[in-house]
C-alpha cells in the first residue's frame, strides 16, 4: 500500500513508450475515422443527388445519368460539361434534366464528354407553356385585388424595377362569394335584362370548372446573372391572365420533331411580368427551378420520336 505510488511512478516510467505509442495509434484511428465519416457524407450526398436526377417519369424514355465535371472558361457562355459522350449514346440536341426539371440541352458531344447549354444561356430557346397554379394551390399566395407589389426581393441587383399588377378577376373569384356577385342596385330582378350593370361583370363570376389560365410562348435565356424570359408568342386574352408564381413547363410539340423537349418538363415559375409596348404581348421573367451553381448529377433524355 505504501509503495503503490512508487510502483505507479515506476510503471509510468517503464510503460511510457507503450502509452505514447498507443496514444499515437489512437489518434491515427480517430483521424482515419473522421476522414471515413467525411467521405461517407460526401458519397451519401452524391447518392441523394443521383437518386434525385434519376427520379424521372418513364414516359420520357430511359435517361442517361451523367455527372457535371466542369463549367465554361468563358464569361458569356452559360454551359457545363458532363462526363458522358457519344460512347454513351449522347447526341446533340438531347435535353438535360434534374429529376423532371429542365436544365438545358446538349450542344457539343465528344466521345467521353458533352457540353450542356443551360437555359440561362442567351442562345437557348425552347417552347414552353405558362399555366396559373390552380386556385386550391394559389390561395395561400394570393395577392389582394389591385394591390401593386414592388419587384420581388429575389430579383437580381441591378435589374430594372417594374411593378406588377395582379389581375383583378383572379382574386375576385376567390374572395367574392357567389351570392354577392348578383347584388343589384335598386329593386332590379337578378335576371332582368334591362337592369343596370352589376358591380361584378358576369364574365368574371367564379367558374370552378374553368381551366387555369394558360399562355404559350418561348423561353429564352438572357445571359449571366439574369433570369430567362418567356416571350409570349400571342397575346390572347381568351386564354386568361397569367399570375405571378405561375408554373412554366415545356410545351413539347404536337407534330413529331417540332420540339426536342418532351412536354411538361418543369422550367420554373413566373417571377414578374415585363410590360411591353406593341402587339407582341408581354414577357415574363422566370425564376428557374434549378440552382445552376450546385449542379452535380444530371440526366440526359433520349430524343423524342421524330426529333
Amino acid at each position, binding site marked *: 500500500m505504501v509503495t503503490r505510488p512508487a510502483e505507479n511512478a515506476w510503471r509510468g516510467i517503464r510503460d511510457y513508450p507503450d502509452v505514447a505509442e498507443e496514444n499515437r495509434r489512437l489518434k491515427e484511428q480517430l483521424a482515419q475515422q473522421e476522414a471515413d465519416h467525411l467521405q461517407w457524407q460526401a458519397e451519401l450526398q452524391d447518392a441523394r443527388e443521383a437518386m434525385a436526377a434519376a427520379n424521372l417519369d418513364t414516359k420520357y424514355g430511359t435517361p442517361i445519368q451523367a455527372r457535371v465535371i466542369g463549367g465554361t*472558361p*468563358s*464569361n458569356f457562355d452559360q*454551359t457545363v460539361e458532363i462526363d458522358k459522350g457519344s460512347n454513351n449514346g449522347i447526341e446533340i440536341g438531347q435535353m438535360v434534366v434534374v429529376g423532371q426539371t429542365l436544365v438545358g440541352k446538349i450542344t457539343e458531344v465528344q466521345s467521353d464528354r458533352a*457540353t450542356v447549354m443551360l437555359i440561362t444561356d*442567351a442562345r437557348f430557346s425552347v417552347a414552353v407553356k405558362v399555366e396559373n397554379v390552380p386556385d386550391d394551390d394559389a390561395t395561400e399566395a394570393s395577392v389582394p385585388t389591385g394591390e401593386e407589389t414592388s419587384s420581388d426581393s429575389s430579383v437580381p441587383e441591378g435589374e430594372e424595377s417594374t411593378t406588377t399588377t395582379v389581375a383583378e378577376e383572379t382574386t375576385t373569384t376567390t374572395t367574392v362569394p357567389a351570392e354577392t356577385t348578383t347584388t343589384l342596385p335598386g329593386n332590379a330582378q337578378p335576371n332582368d335584362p334591362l337592369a343596370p350593370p352589376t358591380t361584378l361583370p358576369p364574365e368574371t363570376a367564379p367558374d370552378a370548372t374553368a381551366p387555369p389560365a394558360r399562355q404559350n410562348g418561348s423561353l*429564352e435565356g438572357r445571359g*449571366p*446573372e*439574369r433570369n430567362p424570359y418567356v416571350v409570349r408568342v400571342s397575346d390572347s386574352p381568351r386564354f386568361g391572365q397569367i399570375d405571378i408564381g405561375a408554373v412554366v413547363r415545356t410545351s413539347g410539340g404536337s407534330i413529331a420533331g417540332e420540339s426536342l423537349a418532351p412536354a411538361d418538363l418543369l422550367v420554373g415559375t413566373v417571377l414578374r411580368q415585363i410590360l411591353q409596348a406593341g402587339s407582341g404581348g408581354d414577357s415574363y421573367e422566370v425564376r428557374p427551378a434549378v440552382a445552376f451553381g450546385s449542379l452535380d448529377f444530371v440526366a440526359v433524355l433520349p430524343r423524342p420520336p421524330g426529333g
Partner: protein
Amino acid sequence: MLEILRHPLLRLLMIGLPVLALQDTMLTDMRPAGVAIQAMLLLAVAGGIAGGPERGALAGFVMGFLFDLVLTSPMGLHALVYGLAGFLAGYINSLTLDHPRWLVMLVVGVASAACTVAYPVASAMIGEDVAITSALIKITVVVSVANIVFAVPAVWLLRWALHVREPDAPLSVREEPV
C-alpha cells in the same frame, strides 16, 4: 531541328497550350466576383506589346483560335477578336517611344477592356445571341484588373515566344546589355 524551335508559331503554341489547360481548369473554377479571368486574352494583348501590332495580331489569332477549341462559340470568333486585341495593344504601345512598366500595365488593361466589350458586339454582328447586360461592366473590370496584375510576366513570356529582337523591343522591356 533546333531552328524550328525558334519559330514564333511553335513557341506561341508551347505557351498557349499550357495556359489553355490552366484556363479550362483552374481559372474556370476560380472566379473572383463570379468572373473567369481570361488568361488567353492576356497572352494576346501581351503579344501586341511585346512584338508590335503585326506580331500582336498573330499572337492574338493563335490564342483566340486555341480558346475557340474549348468553347461553344462559333469557331474563329475569339481568333478574330483576340487578333484585333493584339493588334490594338501593339498599336497603342507603338504610340510612345518609352514604355515604363506602368504604361505596359495600362495598355494591357485598356486593350483587355476593349476586347471584353468588343466580344459580345462581334458576336451580335455575326448573328449570335449574346446578352449585353450590366454584368458586362463587372466582367470588363475584373478581367482588366487581373490582366494588369499579370501583365509584366506575360509580356516577358511573349517576347520570348515572338523572338523579339533588340531593335524591335520596346525600351522598357529591352534586355540589359551584358
